[in-house]
């Protein structure tokens, strides 16, 4: 009984939250099963506020609320430059890609990112781009899913003492269930509710160090000059509040670009543009999505640095080597049942919203963009097979979560760099450049992967001057250049005028 006395608030809130998610999945079960367009893109009939919150909750995950927030314990308040870069790319994504992508994908009847490549560039080579991009999605996404499942399971272990393997199973099973039942409908509506919770929890978490320290002046005095040590054992002194002292700006820029540019290239984000219902909704989402994301990042990106005001030298000496535990430690230290319960719900929301978004991307990529392309199937089989594949993939993610390999965080950032370099040129060119060709798109995709791999595993860590230059920078530039040069060189391969008229619509746009 002691267990329930201690944890009842968190248990009740968690049960309420999980029940809500499952109810939404069940509610949309029938509607989502009526056709591929409904299951894959929610028939492009979702209101702007839902899409806006869903884009935000999909972009930010437990990697943000636990991983990135904890990192500023090591790097100081300057870590928020990450958030600024991230918000900038969120704005670029909505301004540059949003309206165009919604229009073109509706005209082309595109339901996934890989099939957009096929329908836009319209050739046999474009068909192979579709399969290649689906394969990239399958391989690049699994590390991200394992990382999130691991983060959520650790939260359950540290807050509710639930064994890791049970916690991981519960998280994956619940998310998988509501995603399979309601397809894109339940992903978007649960994402929206999770987005509201995450936004509130970001603000609440920021308040904790200030409340604990007894006000702004006390907290700033504590972190402004501290004897807590860096990873190398040197005292930080004013490092937490001084730009560039604990981490080089070049390093922040590289990680910031790798994470931020996922907004303009990663399918789980771009698929949001497909489902929005009209221009009025588009305008709402273009304004509010960066606000939701930006304010949340202002709250969490410097959180770890503020936690220095809550811990003693010995605790800081441990946490500096375990920054993933900083947020959990902060909640333990503050020790308020209600605050803990709400924050745990927020961390679940952060993890599950991103997990559900990639589960559906995985299912659609495999069934519609690989299987259906290689061996065309009757359309009535597409939804059931998508459901089965998603369930199977979740089992694989669970097994990998039980035996996680080292370096998942680095692999996830690397996957982000692959998306940015390999997908963005072909998408941007497809939306804006009538002279873009299938060969240009394919060459840029291959170049993006190649430069990423060669830069990272070839010579980035061989030369001291290059170690802070993230592979996303050279890979993105080379892929973009490749798209332009190869498209110009292979100009004859561009689709016929009638097709381009369909793609780009009437001149008034």
């Amino acid at each position, binding site marked *: 009984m002691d267990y329930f006395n201690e944890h009842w608030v968190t248990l009740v809130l968690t049960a309420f939250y999980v029940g809500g998610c499952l109810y939404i999945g069940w509610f949309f079960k029938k509607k989502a099963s009526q056709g591929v367009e409904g299951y894959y893109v929610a*028939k*492009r*009939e979702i209101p702007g506020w839902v899409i806006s919150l869903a884009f935000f909750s999909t972009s930010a995950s437990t990697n943000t609320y636990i991983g990135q927030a904890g990192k500023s314990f090591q790097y*100081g*308040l*300057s870590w*928020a*430059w990450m*958030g*600024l870069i991230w*918000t*900038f790319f969120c*704005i670029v994504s909505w*301004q540059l890609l949003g*309206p165009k992508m*919604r*229009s*073109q994908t*509706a*005209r082309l009847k595109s339901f996934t990112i890989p099939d957009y490549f096929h329908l836009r560039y319209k050739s046999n080579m474009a068909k192979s781009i579709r399969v290649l991009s689906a394969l990239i999605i399958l391989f690049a996404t699994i590390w991200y899913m394992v990382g999130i499942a691991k983060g959520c399971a650790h939260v359950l272990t540290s807050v509710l003492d639930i064994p890791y393997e049970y916690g991981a199973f519960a998280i994956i099973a619940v998310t998988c269930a509501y995603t399979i039942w309601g397809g894109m409908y339940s992903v978007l509506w649960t994402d929206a509710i999770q987005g509201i919770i995450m936004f509130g929890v970001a603000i609440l978490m920021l308040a904790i160090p200030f409340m604990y320290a007894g006000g702004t002046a006390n907290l*700033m005095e504590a972190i*402004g000059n501290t004897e807590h040590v860096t990873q190398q054992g040197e005292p930080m002194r004013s490092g937490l*509040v*001084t*730009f*560039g002292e604990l981490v080089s700006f070049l390093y922040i820029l590289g990680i910031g670009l790798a994470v931020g540019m996922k907004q303009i290239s990663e399918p789980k984000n771009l698929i949001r543009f497909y489902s*929005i*219902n*009209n*221009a*009025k909704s*588009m*305008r709402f989402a*273009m*304004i509010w999505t*960066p*606000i939701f994301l*930006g*304010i949340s*990042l*202002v709250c969490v*990106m*410097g959180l770890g640095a503020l936690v220095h005001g809550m811990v003693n030298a010995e605790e800081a000496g441990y946490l500096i080597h375990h920054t993933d535990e900083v947020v959990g430690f902060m909640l333990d230290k503050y020790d308020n049942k209600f605050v803990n319960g709400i924050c745990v719900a927020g961390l679940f929301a952060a993890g599950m919203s991103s997990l559900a978004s990639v589960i559906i991307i995985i299912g659609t990529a495999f069934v519609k963009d690989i299987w259906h392309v290689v061996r065309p199937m009757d359309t009535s089989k597409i939804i059931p097979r998508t459901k089965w594949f998603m369930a199977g993939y979740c089992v694989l993610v669970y097994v990998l979560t039980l035996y996680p390999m080292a370096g998942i965080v680095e692999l996830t950032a690397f996957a982000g760099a692959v998306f940015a370099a390999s997908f963005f040129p072909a998408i941007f060119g497809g939306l804006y450049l009538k002279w873009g060709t299938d060969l240009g798109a394919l060459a840029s995709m291959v170049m993006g992967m190649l430069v990423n791999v060669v830069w990272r595993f070839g010579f980035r860590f061989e030369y001291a001057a290059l170690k802070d230059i993230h592979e996303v920078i050279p890979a993105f530039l080379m892929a973009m250049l490749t798209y332009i040069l190869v498209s110009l060189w292979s100009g004859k391969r561009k689709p016929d005028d009638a097709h381009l008229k369909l793609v780009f*619509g009437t001149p*008034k*746009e």
Partner: protein
Amino acid sequence: MDFLTVFPYVGILVLVLLNAILVLKRDITVDSHNPE
């Protein structure tokens, strides 16, 4: 606390505000289920 440490926190807020003004001034059209 130096200027460049504070900058991203203020910068994010200014950025989202500028974006809102830009979007309101922009003519937005989307493609054929729920016309405005």
